[in-house]
């Protein structure tokens, strides 16, 4: 994305967003460098997302992230409304989060993904108690794992399910259509019980960068998220972007991709948190959003988000088709 275009869009959305934003600075905003102003969330067309990583600096990096995890917003997420979490915030009760997926397993004891996620969420939502339950899940969505997820949801009764999905189906080479149908059905089921869902795409790895099947599975996760109007964290895109940022040539014993996996885990907590925080703020701040034109998001005061009584219709900023 060219800078002038982004600037124009930013200006346009500022105008759009201005009427519903109180004109005061937000002390609780998670941006450490206030000078950069609003965090931009821009979604270029899907083809650009999947095939051509933009040259560095073409789009502003999200500076609210740790330096080693910094990725442009378009590589990181598409946003959508999170009604159940918002309700929990309004009712001032703890937000219960269930995080499911391959990286959610076995990591509870040390400060890795689930722990970092809880910390990061509580940091970006001050005064809110976030309870993260993490579960590894065996099996494929297309056969059995979806049913296990339902039982897990019934057991834990979360407000939000953060679902890192697709790895096992990719490893089993499950038919991409079957995978998408089963995923769609399960997301519908979760949403049908007034529980929010955030999907996380599987890892990027150079050895699968030209594997058409794998890429189609990543696409399916994005497509289901778009269809169901749920946020998606582009772990694949984020890792691919980071892999192009001078990680090569370090001569690590296991190769750069193996270090990246570790980095991917650490950054994923930040990325997921960023997507959730912005999704929470987004529905109240943005009054328009189409699948064609990229839109931008302004971080309003947290109060504004919490006090909203009549939420606007769901807004989804999805990669254009």
């Amino acid at each position: 994305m060219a800078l002038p275009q982004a600037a124009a869009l930013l200006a346009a959305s500022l105008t759009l967003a201005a009427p519903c934003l109180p004109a005061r600075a937000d002390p609780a905003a998670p941006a450490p460098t206030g000078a950069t102003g609003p965090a931009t969330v821009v979604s270029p067309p899907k083809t650009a997302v999947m095939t051509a990583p933009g040259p560095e600096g073409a789009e502003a990096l999200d500076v609210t992230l740790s330096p080693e995890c910094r990725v442009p917003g378009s590589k990181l997420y598409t946003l959508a409304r999170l009604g159940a979490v918002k309700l929990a915030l309004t009712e001032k009760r703890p937000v219960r989060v269930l995080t499911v997926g391959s990286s959610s397993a076995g990591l509870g004891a040390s400060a890795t993904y689930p722990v970092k996620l809880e910390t990061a969420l509580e940091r970006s939502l001050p005064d809110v108690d976030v309870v993260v339950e993490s579960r590894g899940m065996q099996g494929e969505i297309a056969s059995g794992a979806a049913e296990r997820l339902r039982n897990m949801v019934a057991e834990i009764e979360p407000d939000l399910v953060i679902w890192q999905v697709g790895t096992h189906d990719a490893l089993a080479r499950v038919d991409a259509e079957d995978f998408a149908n089963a995923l769609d059905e399960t997301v519908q089921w979760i949403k049908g019980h007034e529980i929010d869902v955030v999907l996380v795409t599987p890892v990027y790895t150079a050895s699968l960068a030209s594997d058409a099947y794998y890429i189609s599975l990543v696409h399916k996760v994005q497509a289901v998220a778009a269809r169901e109007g749920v946020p998606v964290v582009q772990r694949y895109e984020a890792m691919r972007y980071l892999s192009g940022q001078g990680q090569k040539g370090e001569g690590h014993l296991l190769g750069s991709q193996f270090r990246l996996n570790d980095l991917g885990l650490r950054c994923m907590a930040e990325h997921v948190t960023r997507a959730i925080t912005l999704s929470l703020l987004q529905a109240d701040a943005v009054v328009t959003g189409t699948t064609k034109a990229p839109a931008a998001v302004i971080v309003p005061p947290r109060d504004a988000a919490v006090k909203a009584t009549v939420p606007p219709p769901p807004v989804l900023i999805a990669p254009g088709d």
Partner: protein
Amino acid sequence: MREPNAIDFWRGLALVTIFVNHIPGNTFERYTYSQYGISDAAELFVFLAGWSIGIATRGRDGRPEPRGRSVLRLLSRTIEVYRAQITTMALALAMIAGTALVLDNPLLLEWHNAGGFFADPIQTMVGFALLTHQLGFFNILPLYVVLLGIAPVFVLLARVSRLAALALSFGLYFASLVFDWNLPSWPGEGDWFFDPLCWQLLLVLGFVAEDWNRRSPWLRTWSVRLVPVGIAIVVTGIVLSVLEIRPDPVLVPEPRLLFTFDKTYLTPARLIHFLGMLLAFQTLYAVLAPRLGPVAGYLTGLGRNSLAVFSIGSLLSLAAQLVRFWTGGGVFVDVSVVGSGLIALGFTAWFVEWRSRKPRPSSPPA
């Protein structure tokens, strides 16, 4: 070497089913009976384990062996199964890591629950030895270790009163369903994939059923009369699983686990379906065995050597998964990996029996 019998035959079939079902996405998966019912091969495997304990802890004349010997026998079996679990898990992790290195593909490191081991080896190594860190598809043996570990309690109690053993077992099962009791995973959050506190019921049922079946003509008569009930349950299971009809776990009344279809807790629906299968198919072996010829011989061979066949089968399933992923799958690959796997399982059974026949230098014949 035992003569071919129904127990080994069905156990062999369960082993083949587990091997095929543990290669998710493969062409043959949809032809296993697990796809056409609420319960699957795991129930059969555990029930038959209980049945075998009944046989093993008695002499040929049906009289129970001395208590101390039964306890030591079960302890020795527990150690054997634990050793098998540790060995197969170690080899599985090495296969996953090795393939990830060769293919330069870290996606493989996130293979069903393996991620924890690679990201967090210090805690996970402890969980590995404690059996509280389990890889996906490698969680039956940990269940089996716990079941064999607690089996002496039920075996000795049943010598005093079979009803008392059943009552204790049912009580533990229902309490676990009502209060969600399960053993914890560690270092990952969550619980065991197979809840031993629930699954012990099948082991005890198998053990008690073997005893009753041997001495009670009443049970034998009634189990034959109830065959139509069994068939009705099996047909219901086929309809429910083909149409994907099942209760919504969020909407069912409390206690939730009494109503859901949940493998982890062997919920009542699964238990009833399994008992229906038992009733429906109890006499089938006598009909099948003469007609199947070498297939029956193959399956009973697997069943006689179930621990070795299961362990090798787990590793072969994983190898097949890795090959399918690497090659992209397809019918040709599926036929090759499943076909060579079945041959390898047969060889494993034969090899174990060959080794036990062969005199060992360390133990000269008396």
